[in-house]
Every structure is written in structure tokens, then in C-alpha cells.
């Protein structure tokens, strides 16, 4: 009875809150303030066709660095909690009940699709400054390809040394690119350390493709590492 009363009170408060938000919202017909400045000056200043990317990587680059740091912390936390003990590596995965292999259909399909998915992920983050998408999306697609390989083969192992090396070096290079902006251009994470190029071509928008490639590699290896830690039997 008390529980229902609380639920009812919560419902009333939520509806009042939403009604206030809804009634105070005025549909805007044009951009205002900082958004207007971004839309007007983004293409000329940064040379990126996709304005979202220009904002995410450059104008709000510090937020993106924070996001990458949060993801890194999450991956580290998962690795710490689910870390592999030394004896697990010596023991076979399971000796009492043998694991069932995946079906032929899934294995063949995964082997066919995984390289294409990795290629699509790379396409997404390389074209981040031209079309929708970017480092995070491309990295997630790459991680899904690794996930498909994990699903299709229960004994599939990733090379942790290579993955760790890619992850840490791309993270360091991202920060180094950001710091280079202080010395060579207007400030931290400024993309104008490289020539802006022609608007709309693949080698344009200064350092944005470089930064998004690094983010893509970092996010992809990190998410793959998280999944690998999760699937491990202990």
C-alpha cells in the first residue's frame, strides 16, 4: 500500500516536471548564440564538411578527451575486476564439460563478414569529417566485428600485446596532437596544425582525420578488450 502511494507521488512529480519543461519550450526557428557562431564560422575556420565532427573534435575537443578518458577508466575497471589469474592461463578452458562449437553457418558467415565490418569501421572514422560518424562509431563497429569472431569461435583469442600497444600509443598520440595545437596553432586540440585543404576532400580539415583515426583505434581496441574480459571463464 505504502509502495503504491510512493509510486503515485513519484508519478505526479514526474508529470509536473515534464509538463513544466513541455510548456516552457518554445519552438525556435533559427539558431541562437554559440550555435549560430558554430554554424556560420565552422566550415571556414576548420574546413570540415561535417559540422558535428568539427564541434566534437575541435570546439568541444576537451569534452571528447574527457569521454575517451572515461571509456579508458571503464575498460581499466573491467580488466581489474575480471582479471585473469595466472593459473587460468595454464588450465584449459573447461575439462569436465566440453564446450559446444558454434554452427558451421555462423562460423562461415563470421569469417566472411568480420573483415568487411572492420573495413567499414575504418571507413566511418576516416570519413568522420565528411559524412556522419566518427571515431566512437567506427571503433564500436570494429569492436562488433571482434565480437562476431568471439561468438563464432569459442577458442578465439586476441593478441593482448598488440591490442594494448595500439590502445596506449593511440591515446598518447591523441594527447600529443592536442598539445601540438598549443604551440603550432590557436590552442589545445586546435586542428589547424595541418593544412586545412579543400573543403570536402578526404585530406582536409587539418588534424581532424588524424585525431578521429586515433580515437577510432583506441575505442575499438578498448571495447574489444572489455568484451574479451567479460567472456572469459573463471
Amino acid at each position: 500500500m505504502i509502495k503504491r502511494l510512493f509510486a503515485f507521488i513519484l508519478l505526479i512529480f514526474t508529470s509536473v516536471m515534464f509538463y513544466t519543461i513541455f510548456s516552457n519550450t518554445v519552438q525556435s526557428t533559427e539558431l541562437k548564440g554559440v550555435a549560430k557562431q558554430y554554424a556560420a564560422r565552422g566550415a571556414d575556420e576548420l574546413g570540415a564538411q561535417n559540422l558535428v565532427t568539427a564541434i566534437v573534435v575541435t570546439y568541444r575537443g576537451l569534452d571528447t578527451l574527457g569521454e575517451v578518458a572515461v571509456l579508458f577508466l571503464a575498460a581499466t575497471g573491467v580488466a581489474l575486476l575480471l582479471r585473469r589469474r595466472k593459473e587460468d592461463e595454464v588450465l584449459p578452458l573447461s575439462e569436465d564439460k566440453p564446450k559446444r562449437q558454434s554452427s558451421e553457418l555462423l562460423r562461415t558467415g563470421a569469417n566472411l563478414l568480420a573483415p568487411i565490418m572492420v573495413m567499414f569501421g575504418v571507413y566511418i572514422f576516416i570519413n568522420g569529417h565528411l559524412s556522419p560518424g566518427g571515431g566512437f562509431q567506427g571503433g564500436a563497429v570494429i569492436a562488433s566485428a571482434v565480437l562476431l569472431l568471439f561468438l563464432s569461435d569459442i577458442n578465439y583469442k586476441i593478441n593482448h600485446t598488440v591490442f594494448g600497444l595500439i590502445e596506449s600509443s593511440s591515446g598518447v598520440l591523441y594527447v600529443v596532437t592536442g598539445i601540438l595545437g598549443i604551440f603550432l596553432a590557436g590552442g589545445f586540440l586546435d586542428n589547424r596544425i595541418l593544412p586545412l585543404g579543400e573543403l570536402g576532400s578526404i585530406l582536409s580539415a587539418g588534424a581532424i582525420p588524424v585525431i578521429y583515426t586515433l580515437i577510432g583505434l583506441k575505442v575499438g581496441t578498448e571495447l574489444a578488450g572489455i568484451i574479451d574480459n567479460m567472456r572469459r571463464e573463471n
Partner: protein
Amino acid sequence: MTELQQGIIILMGIAMVVSAGLAMYVKDLVSSVIAVGVVSLFASILYLILQAPDVAMTEAAIGAGLSTLIFLYALHKTTDKEEEND
């Protein structure tokens, strides 16, 4: 925004609320996880209609894809442990 788009948006919203409710009330935990993934999937379509393709891609890849699988792995792990304790 055309009538058709508005209709699709309303349908998607209803579908999201229904799957979110299913996620809470379904007894089987695996179905519940799938329902949570479906919420993300509809949300990503909604973002696409609202002309935010960047967000839609993130939602589809991470919300509907990876996080569902991570939930399933976690579920698998915890149920294994319960069986060991019996």
C-alpha cells in the same frame, strides 16, 4: 516535418515505452535484456528521423549491439556462479 514522419515518430515512441515496460515485467532475464536492446534500436531509428545520424550510429552500435551482448555475458557469468553454489 510531414504527417508520415510524425506518425512514425509516435509509433516509435509507443514501441519504446512498450519494450521498456516489457523489460521490467518479463520474468525471463534474457528476454528482458533483449527488450532493453530493442529500446535502443527504436531510439536509434528515432534519432535518424530527427536528423541526428551521428547519434543514431552510436546508439545502434553501442546501445543495441555491444551493451546487449555485455549484459548477456554478465548474465551468463552470474547464473554459472549460482549453479556452482548449489
